[in-house]
């Protein structure tokens, strides 16, 4: 029997290790569906899922959409551009209006940290966080963990290096929380303004020197760097960033043999990662995308399956 008692997926911080393993194991079983000719099972037939995306995203949104459809759920997409939010409707009113149509789950991506938690305090549906501000992106961390497990089998003492704009990255935070829980060792690398010292208290090591940090690394996770950060003086120029923090062949050879290369996408070729490395055999970037669907199917299955439970906790 399954012991998954969460009502929502708001963040990795709310999950314990057994929840995480249940999600990964379920994803593994569901992955086979995407290889069939008829990529569908009837499990969530009749359930309605709403994609509530207040930030532009094609990849995460379509990943959730495919996941829902493969489980035979109905899904509708609500994005900020073509909606009443532009007319000044509050998030709360938007959600309450959607809830009047009886959805089973709301998948929310929002630029404000804490927005999915805020929604969960007044809505009746299950809430899935597809990324809130700089706070968490739990399904990304789960699919990253799934990918790592496929390649490396075990997390214990695995050396993971995460590189880039840590300060603003919800992907980094969720990954730090998850990898800590499963026993991996995390080193964070980036330019000092994007990597405050307090991240030491998250249980991760900090380094500003990518070459040093790559020694002994088993997993190299590169994060996207945004131009706006350079304009805000977080680093002086793309040129300087590339010189210090771009993953090149030369840098890669400092890591452990068989180190895998990851990136949540979309990648800036030639900025945080060279084309050569993005396309190398050690890159699992495309696998991450594929695994995203399995993980999101697992989340939908675990949250929406079974009898509607009273709110856990």
């Amino acid at each position, binding site marked *: 029997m399954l012991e998954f008692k969460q009502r929502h997926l708001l963040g990795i911080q709310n999950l314990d290790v057994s929840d995480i393993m249940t999600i990964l194991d379920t994803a593994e079983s569901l992955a086979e569906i995407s290889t069939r000719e008829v990529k569908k099972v009837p499990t969530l037939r009749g359930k309605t899922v709403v994609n509530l995306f207040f930030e532009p995203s094609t990849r995460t949104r379509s990943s959730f959409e495919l996941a829902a459809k493969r489980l035979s759920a109905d899904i509708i997409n609500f994005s900020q551009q073509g909606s009443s939010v532009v007319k000044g409707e*509050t*998030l*709360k009113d938007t959600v309450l209006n959607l809830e009047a149509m009886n959805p089973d789950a709301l998948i929310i991506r*929002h*630029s*404000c*940290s*804490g*927005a999915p*938690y*805020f929604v969960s305090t007044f809505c009746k549906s299950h809430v899935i966080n597809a990324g*809130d*501000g*700089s*706070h*968490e992106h739990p399904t990304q961390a789960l699919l990253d963990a799934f990918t790592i497990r496929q390649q490396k089998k075990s997390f214990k003492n695995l050396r993971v290096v995460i590189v880039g704009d840590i*300060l603003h990255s*919800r992907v980094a*935070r969720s990954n730090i929380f998850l990898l800590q829980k499963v026993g991996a060792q995390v080193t964070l690398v980036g330019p000092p303004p994007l990597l*405050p010292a*307090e*991240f030491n*208290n*998250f249980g991760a090591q900090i380094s500003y020197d990518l070459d040093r940090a790559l020694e002994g690394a088993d997993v190299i996770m590169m994060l996207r760097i945004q131009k706006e950060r350079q304009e805000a003086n977080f680093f002086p120029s793309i040129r300087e960033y590339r010189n210090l923090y771009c993953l090149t062949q030369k840098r890669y050879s400092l890591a452990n043999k068989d180190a895998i290369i990851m990136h949540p996408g979309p990648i800036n070729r030639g900025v945080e990662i060279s084309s050569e490395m993005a396309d190398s055999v050690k890159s699992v970037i495309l696998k991450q995308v594929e695994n995203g669907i399995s993980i999101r199917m697992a989340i939908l299955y675990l949250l929406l399956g079974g009898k509607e439970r009273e709110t856990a906790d």
Partner: protein
Amino acid sequence: MRLLIKNGRVVDPSSGIDETLDILVEKGKIVDLRAKIESNNAQVIDASRLVVAPGFIDMHAHLREPGQEDKEDIRTASLAAASGGFTSLCAMPNTQPVNDNRGVTEYILSEANKRSRVNIFPVAAITKNLKGEELTDMADLFSAGAVAFSDDGRCVQDSLVMRRALEYSNFLQAPIIDHCENSSLSQDGLMHEGFYSHLFGLKGIPSSAEDIMVARDIILAEAANARIHIAHLSTRGSVYLVREAKKRKVKVTAEVTPHHLVLTDSALENYSTNLKVNPPLRGQDDVQALLDAVKDGVIDVFATDHAPHTQEEKDVEFDRAPFGINGLETAVSLLLDKLVNKNIISLPRFIEMISTRPAQILGLKDKGRIAPGADADLTILNLHKEVVVDVHLFLSKSRNNPFHGWKLKGAPTMTIVAGKAVDPCS
């Protein structure tokens, strides 16, 4: 006409009195103060087992009138104040329109005269429209009735403008109340920058944003030999700077809010917008430094920074909510419970900080003390009364108060303004 308050423990730090005395009030003034006054023709109030203090003065409150009466107005703010034990309020100028001209000051005073149950003292803006560029007609505003100047809500970023403001207000003998915030460091920040802001994924406001302006304005005040009052101190860096400045005899005074003494940034875990305030709730070290400064006199005044907002404005995702905590109706109980009843400060020290010193700083000679000839503004306290905070019973229009449900020991039981007990419910 005549009021006799009997048997109360009268505590007046300005004279050092702390004993059981009777107080006789007539025509809005205190006329007699001694043990066992006879009660001929006076309405008697029995203050046995209660503390009678000079009326509390809140140097920092936002009344939102004119312009934002959906959040609060002069009348409801005064009811909230009276309910909270305050007999006088300073009205900050960031209204709509800004109180940067005589017309708005006179409007506030005239409306207060008609509709307020407590004394209202307008604080006028330092710069026109709070833009930080041109000084207001400070002398004119002062003669219209402004008691101090502030750009609160904003901070004058241009050092030259601030220098001139200090020089000019100095000759008027009116203090500048300084909201210290360097806007390029604090820009877009939502909570205190530190471990918790990184954990919650919220943009941080570093302590340095406050410390830098505290340092700058102490230096400018020192150079101009002018007075400066630092509003809502929140960091240990600021405490250090004020302490050192006082040692050098700079004419600096400082205030602190109750919420900065009882809450820290870790409380923002649930993204509650009732905890979103500027300056933000800081870390444990900062709170400790503020408490030490309250104890040793580096901080002079308790003020609420009462900042009412409508429920619709606060019932949104964290980024979009306006900054501000409603404070008039919880301040005194919080301070009595968390500071006086926990023996962090004595009762006379508390009263000094919430009545004596504000009156002195604002130059209100007949307030903040209990003596024949002084105004009959009195606050009566029950140190043992247990209350449970219920925001739904607030007299303020606003409900953005984070202390709902808190059990506190100590509360005001009566507020007397100009010799009349204020019944806020009538």
